[in-house]
């Protein structure tokens, strides 16, 4: 076994390193000897060459998702795209109705945007997912009303990696004339997206989740049938008035290159990453009392979210100090609340506190995975020897029957 380079990065769903090919393109669009111009400058070649670079990037982004380049609006990232799509559509169509439907396991950029709309007088239903993390289509249909104007359901969940059936959801929303927004920050470049086939009206993207730079994203805004938005950022009327602000050429070029590479290499990346994830799970599934969170089949390849029962997640992360990953444990969040996503699946608090998210990406190696398996096994044994809950479990005590002093 070759030794991996430490520390090992297994947090690819949080962010990814920029691909060298992406960086190279970006560098060419910043300095005096590069294309540094303002793409909005129409009166000289500096502006024209920057505009050309932005157009090429727009084509690359559109190509990955089979959309028209004119449907791409640059933003600062998926959070801004979610805000622009949801608030923009809700404000524009509010005369039609003020009811919005979303899912409890959405990213905070969607949930908090919906909360803001509630403060403005909109009504929002936050649906419980099924135990496997997927949307319950029956419940969903029942929740839609005459005055529902917007549905926002993410494509791939950032914590548990489950893939929602946005094709089926889109059929329902389109038939009812409801705008359908999808946060695709975690799916673009990892699973195929065909916006000619999908009946999605608005879709949010981020560059840094697929080896592009941070600080740049896009919102897809459908042209046919046309979707309209009220701008959230006002100014020079860039991006057809939907998002003003000088275009960040180097960032846009970076996103374009990242999406171009993803388009070419998605299949091979997928196969390699899936094989690594299977290797990771095969190595750990023999440990007693481990549970996968979220549906295992409808799941993006790079994600493995596991609860190690009777061990608190943060203490496990401490033991895995040479491995960078994240936990659903309360102790790793500022709020001291365990993962709201796992709780929404109906996982009890212990399992939510005990969860780790492993996320695998383009630069993960077999040696990384093998090292991780060995360290996890060793650490789980050590921490269970320390755990009074494990001891009780081994003595046959049903922990649910114990009266705990909740503090």
């Amino acid at each position: 076994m070759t030794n991996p380079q430490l520390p090992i990065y297994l947090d690819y769903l949080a962010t990814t390193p920029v691909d060298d090919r992406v960086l190279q393109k970006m560098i060419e669009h910043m300095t005096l000897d590069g294309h540094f111009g303002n793409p909005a400058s129409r009166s000289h070649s500096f502006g024209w060459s920057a505009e050309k670079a932005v157009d090429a990037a727009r084509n690359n982004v559109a190509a990955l998702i089979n959309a028209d380049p004119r449907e791409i609006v640059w933003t600062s990232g998926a959070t801004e795209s979610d805000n622009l799509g949801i608030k923009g559509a809700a404000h524009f169509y509010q005369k039609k109705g003020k009811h919005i439907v979303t899912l409890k396991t959405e990213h905070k950029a969607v949930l908090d945007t919906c909360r803001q709309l509630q403060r403005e007088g909109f009504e929002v239903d936050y649906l419980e997912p099924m135990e496997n993390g997927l949307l319950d289509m029956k419940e969903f249909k029942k929740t839609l009303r005459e005055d529902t104007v917007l549905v926002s359901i993410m494509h791939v969940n950032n914590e548990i990696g489950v893939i929602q059936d946005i094709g089926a959801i889109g059929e329902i929303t389109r038939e009812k004339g409801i705008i359908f927004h999808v946060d695709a920050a975690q799916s673009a470049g990892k699973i195929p997206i065909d916006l000619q086939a999908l009946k999605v009206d608005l879709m949010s993207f981020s560059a840094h989740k697929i080896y592009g730079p941070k600080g740049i994203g896009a919102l897809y805004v459908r042209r046919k049938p046309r979707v309209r938005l009220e701008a959230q950022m006002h100014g020079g009327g860039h991006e057809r008035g939907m998002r003003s602000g000088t275009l960040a050429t180097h960032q846009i070029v970076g996103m374009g290159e990242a999406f171009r590479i993803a388009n070419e290499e998605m299949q091979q990346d997928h196969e390699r990453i899936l094989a690594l994830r299977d290797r990771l799970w095969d190595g750990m599934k023999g440990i007693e009392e481990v549970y996968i969170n979220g549906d295992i089949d409808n799941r993006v390849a790079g994600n493995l979210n596991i609860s190690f029962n009777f061990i608190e997640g943060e203490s496990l992360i401490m033991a895995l100090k040479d491995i960078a990953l994240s936990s659903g444990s309360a102790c790793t969040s500022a709020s001291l609340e365990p993962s709201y996503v796992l709780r929404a699946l109906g996982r009890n608090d212990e399992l939510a506190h005990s969860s780790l998210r492993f996320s695998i990406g383009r630069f993960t190696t077999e040696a990384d995975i093998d090292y991780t398996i060995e360290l996890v096994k060793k650490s789980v044994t050590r921490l269970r020897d320390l755990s009074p809950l494990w001891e009780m479990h081994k003595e046959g005590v049903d922990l649910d029957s114990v009266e705990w002093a909740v503090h």
Partner: protein
Amino acid sequence: MAYGNKVLDHYENPRNVGSMDKQDPAVGTGMVGAPACGDVMKLQIKVNEQGVIEDAKFKTYGCGSAIASSSLLTEWVRGRTLDEAKEIKNSQIAEELSLPPVKIHCSVLAEDAIKAAISDFEKKNG
């Protein structure tokens, strides 16, 4: 979250991990916290006829600071009388381990654990 060296030391080399016989009249057991809150501490003390804690063992489910707080506590109570052990305050533990404000509850739990263990022992021998 970055930890202080003392927390890391106790986490990596926890002192006095283990269990003693709960039924033994010389043993007092305190179990505090709740799995739902992310931390549970079990602290056991063995008290001799002079009322001195001659041994202490712990097991903790919780974050690094919770493990370190209980590990430190077992070191501190050994050799103390019950009355002296009752004097241990969470603030002393927090100070010794340089716990950040969000981890103060770990030291509170440790103080609760020694109080609960002493009270269990006194009930048995009351």
